[in-house]
């Protein structure tokens, strides 16, 4: 194998498709990354500021050139402002995604969103109860209407604190109150961040960063949490189910449709259309054996979690999957969809469809989906995909798919444990399982694709640490065969025993990237059961290959919630060692957790084991010297 491609991705399908892409003269994300090198050091360090037009400004990291922007902001302020705006963008993305789901819930309640329904009435009632909605005697639509309204209020400015914060342990909420970072409204915190970072508002880097944590919490315990809960209500709470992963899930004799993006609102309707008998018949009439729906990225994770729909790949595979020539249509919603996809698809017969009024892309046809028309639109585009099957050229599907199990919602994990988290707590106490780690986040061309995720996961499970993962990390470990019950063989003896007893893999797929909140909910449940705070638990978080602003928000809400979080790539903060020190050391005294940056996944695993054993010792549990 070409060394160049082996350095770019550890996946076999990725390497083979990179060769194909080169033959087909397709420019990929790695090529563009190389073209960008060297990347601007001011920007990498967070030292450039484009906030106003007295600037743009940059600070000389060597201390001889300018040390202040035109407005007078120094390195600390500029770095903190830039980071604050990254968090705001990330929180806005997840939360706006959540809002779209609340809108569907609202329209379902009003009977306008034909095609959608409430699949998990029990969960609807449970969540409604948390919002103080009395369900007795009301039909689900009515409850849904009231819940949607209450959630919309969480987005606004009328609350003093977000409703779902009450899921957090009391000790944690007290810390937030003390630091004055309890999020009040989802949109409010993002809006306030934009205000604070305007020239001449908040010029104290500490308070800017603290507001960054509040903004992130408004995502983790607000926008993202609502997104997950409403998705479960509308489309069903995930249940463990077997599926297949990697590019090999494409089928040469089927109409292949790929959904890409994040929000299940569109992809669920596409799934329905793909299962309808008349369209299947049409596919057969067009010479195909059937319709094969597969996902990439998080909209794929949403379908995988709830419906066992196969997963073709994660972030860095999204261009490569098109080079198979086997994709008849790719349907996208929003987030992490590279604007290059249209031009890749243009080299093949693949039809590219954008669906959201807020997300348009060059080289794609726009078919706008709304809750009222989504079912009908989905049928239309699937029909187009079927008709496109005949236009296929040469097809290259270089690998066989790998089996995986997905669908571990908090509810099903508790079910698997026999209805209570107690067995997990007992295993933790006994030390059979040393702790748990949530691995989340993206792919990044700076890092060999999946290498960070897979290496870190392997090192952790070898040491009896249960791994839960989401997003592109979850796809990476699925591709690597770690999401099978048999993968317990790769785990340490304790974890192997537990997995064997419960029949679960050592790495649990908890969903898409908004579903990181499931990890928060699980951690809270454990903390509450132990009568302690999240920051006292033998747990940690990691984002070994993160790239996006959403990941910054996720990392910040993990840390603000008390989860020690290890990042692979360096965030743009090294321009201010004050900011670096606060985030990697100082926050420990404030929120009981810090960030740690470690590009080497093996060293990251070591740091996490050390952290977990330290927490075990503090809880008076048997601990190891690492």
């Amino acid at each position, binding site marked *: 194998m070409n*060394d*160049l491609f082996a*350095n770019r991705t550890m996946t076999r399908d990725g390497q083979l498709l990179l060769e194909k892409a*080169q*033959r087909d*003269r*397709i*420019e990929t994300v790695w*090529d563009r990354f*190389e*073209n960008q*090198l060297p990347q601007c050091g001011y920007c990498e360090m967070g030292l450039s500021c484009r906030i106003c037009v007295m600037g743009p400004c940059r600070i000389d990291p060597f201390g001889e050139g300018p040390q202040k922007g035109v407005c007078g902001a120094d390195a600390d302020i500029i770095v903190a402002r830039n980071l604050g705006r990254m968090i705001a963008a990330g929180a806005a993305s997840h939360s706006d995604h959540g809002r779209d789901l609340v809108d569907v819930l609202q329209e379902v309640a009003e009977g306008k969103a034909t095609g959608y329904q409430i699949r998990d009435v029990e969960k609807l009632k449970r969540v409604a109860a948390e919002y103080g909605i009395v369900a007795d005697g009301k039909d689900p639509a009515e409850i849904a209407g009231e819940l949607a309204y209450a959630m919309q209020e969480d987005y606004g400015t009328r609350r003093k604190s977000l409703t779902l914060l009450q899921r957090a342990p009391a000790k944690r909420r007290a810390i937030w109150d003390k630091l004055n970072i309890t999020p009040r409204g989802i949109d409010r915190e993002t809006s306030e961040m934009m205000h604070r970072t305007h020239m001449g508002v908040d010029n104290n880097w500490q308070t800017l960063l603290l507001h960054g944590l509040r903004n992130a919490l408004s995502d983790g315990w607000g926008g993202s949490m609502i997104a997950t809960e409403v998705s479960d209500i509308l489309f069903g709470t995930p249940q463990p189910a077997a599926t297949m992963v990697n590019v090999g899930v494409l089928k040469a004799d089927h109409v292949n449709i790929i959904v890409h993006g994040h929000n299940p609102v569109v992809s669920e309707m596409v799934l329905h259309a793909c299962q309808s008998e008349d369209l299947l018949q049409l596919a057969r009439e067009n010479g195909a054996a059937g319709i094969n729906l597969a996902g990439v990225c998080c909209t794929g994770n949403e379908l995988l979690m709830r419906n066992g729909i196969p997963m073709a790949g994660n972030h860095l595979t999204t261009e490569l999957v098109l080079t198979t020539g086997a994709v008849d249509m790719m349907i996208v919603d929003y987030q992490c969809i590279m604007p290059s996809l249209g031009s890749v698809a243009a080299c093949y017969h693949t039809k590219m469809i954008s669906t959201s009024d807020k997300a348009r892309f060059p080289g794609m046809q726009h078919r706008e989906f709304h809750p009222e028309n989504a079912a009908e639109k989905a049928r239309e585009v699937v029909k187009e995909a079927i008709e496109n099957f005949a236009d296929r050229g040469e097809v290259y599907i270089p690998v066989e798919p790998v089996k995986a199990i997905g669908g571990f919602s908090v509810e099903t994990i508790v079910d698997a444990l026999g209805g209570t988290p107690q067995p997990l707590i007992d295993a933790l106490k006994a030390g059979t399982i040393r702790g748990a780690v949530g691995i989340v986040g993206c792919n990044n061309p700076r890092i060999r694709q999946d290498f960070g995720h897979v290496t870190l996961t392997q090192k952790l499970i070898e040491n009896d640490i249960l791994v839960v993962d989401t997003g592109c990390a979850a796809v990476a470990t699925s591709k690597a065969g770690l999401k099978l019950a048999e993968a317990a063989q790769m785990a340490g003896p304790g974890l192997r025993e537990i997995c064997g007893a419960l029949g679960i893999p050592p790495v649990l797929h908890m969903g898409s990237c908004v579903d990181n909140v499931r990890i928060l909910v699980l951690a809270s449940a454990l903390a509450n059961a132990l009568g302690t705070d999240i920051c006292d638990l033998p747990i940690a978080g990691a984002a070994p290959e993160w790239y996006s602003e959403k990941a910054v928000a996720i990392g910040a809400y993990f840390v603000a919630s008390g989860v020690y979080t290890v990042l692979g790539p360096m965030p743009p903060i090294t321009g201010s060692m004050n900011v670096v020190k606060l985030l990697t050391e100082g926050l420990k005294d404030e929120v009981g957790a810090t960030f740690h940056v470690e590009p080497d996944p093996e060293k990251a695993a070591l740091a996490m084991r050390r952290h977990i054993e330290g927490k075990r010792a503090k809880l008076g549990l048997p601990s190891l010297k690492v």
Partner: protein
Amino acid sequence: MKHVIIGNGIAGISAAEMIRQMDADASMTLIGDESFPPYCRPMISMVLEGSVGYDRLPVRGADFYDRMRIQPILGNRVTALDVDNRTVSVQGEHNISYDKLLIATGADPRPIKANNLHLKNIFFMRTAEHVRAMLEAVPSARRALVLGGGLVGFKAAYGLLHRGIPVTMLIRSGYPLALQVDPRAGQMIQDELVARGLDVRVEVHVIGFDGNSRVRRAFLSDGTELDCDMVVIGKGVTPALSFVPKNIIQVDLGILVNRHLETSVPGIYAAGDVAELIDLARNTRWVNAIWPEAVAQGRVAGMNMVGRKVAYKGSLSRNVIRIFGLDVMTAGIVNAPHDGPYEVIARDDPLRKNYRKLVFLEDRLVGMTLVNHIQQGGMLIAMMQSGRPVNISREKILSASFNYRQLIR
């Protein structure tokens, strides 16, 4: 000190300049067979092509000999060298004595064997005079035949195609420039030329010509005939050393010289196309008849002639060619034998139109072929010349973005 330099090509000129720079009082005589002032031989193909006029060929002004206080003896060839008496004989001149002698006579086109070579419009392409004659034939030419796919044949074909004359090229080997480039680059070059109208015939040669005073037809070794009214012979060059007493001065293909460019006879030096010395990439004696070597060797020979014992590390074959849409740069070993000690790595990146092949011997770079992205080629050549061990990832060097920073720690 009396210096005599035979040859007014760039090696001789460079040596003369170096001698004058280091010794203001030295006496210098320069013997040249061309009467034209010192000119740039590699540029004659551009005159043929039409991109450069004759006026641009001189590399030094008409006052060069005066300025350098050189006694020029031009228009005649050296007929004999008397080593014992330290004299050279020049046609039509008395014997010239020397203290130090530099042989920089260059090379002559290698003749071919074929019938009726006397016919008009059958040319070599080596000197400005040859091109002047060719250009006289161009207006009435309807099809040209180029013999040989080497650098000269290739440049002749390129120039004639530019003039709108259809060209047929006969190549004995499998692809053009087989000595200069690897098969992949050779194929790319051939494709480019064929796309512009060149007719290439491989593994065939000419056995004779026919015509009525002017050439009209060629007979080929495969039994076929070819109409042509102009022929260019480009079958390489051979060092011009007919006057050298081979029983006294050691000669192989060229005149053997040591690291000081001195021949086996003390006080007699050789440089440029006529000299044979250690080749850095091949690690064996080699004649590298190229312009930059002639410049460098001439300068070093000059220094040694005035008594500076400067050592020349060795020569290195290298070439750069631009053909319509392709830039090709090569150096050192381009076709490493499969069973040899070499390690070869290559990358073909059609997206960036970048093809690179590198040849390593242990930890040293000894050969390269670059198609496009040639700006960094000089750096790779410098690496080969310095012989410094390559201690960075070899893959890095294959990338079009490879640059100088990656060599310094």
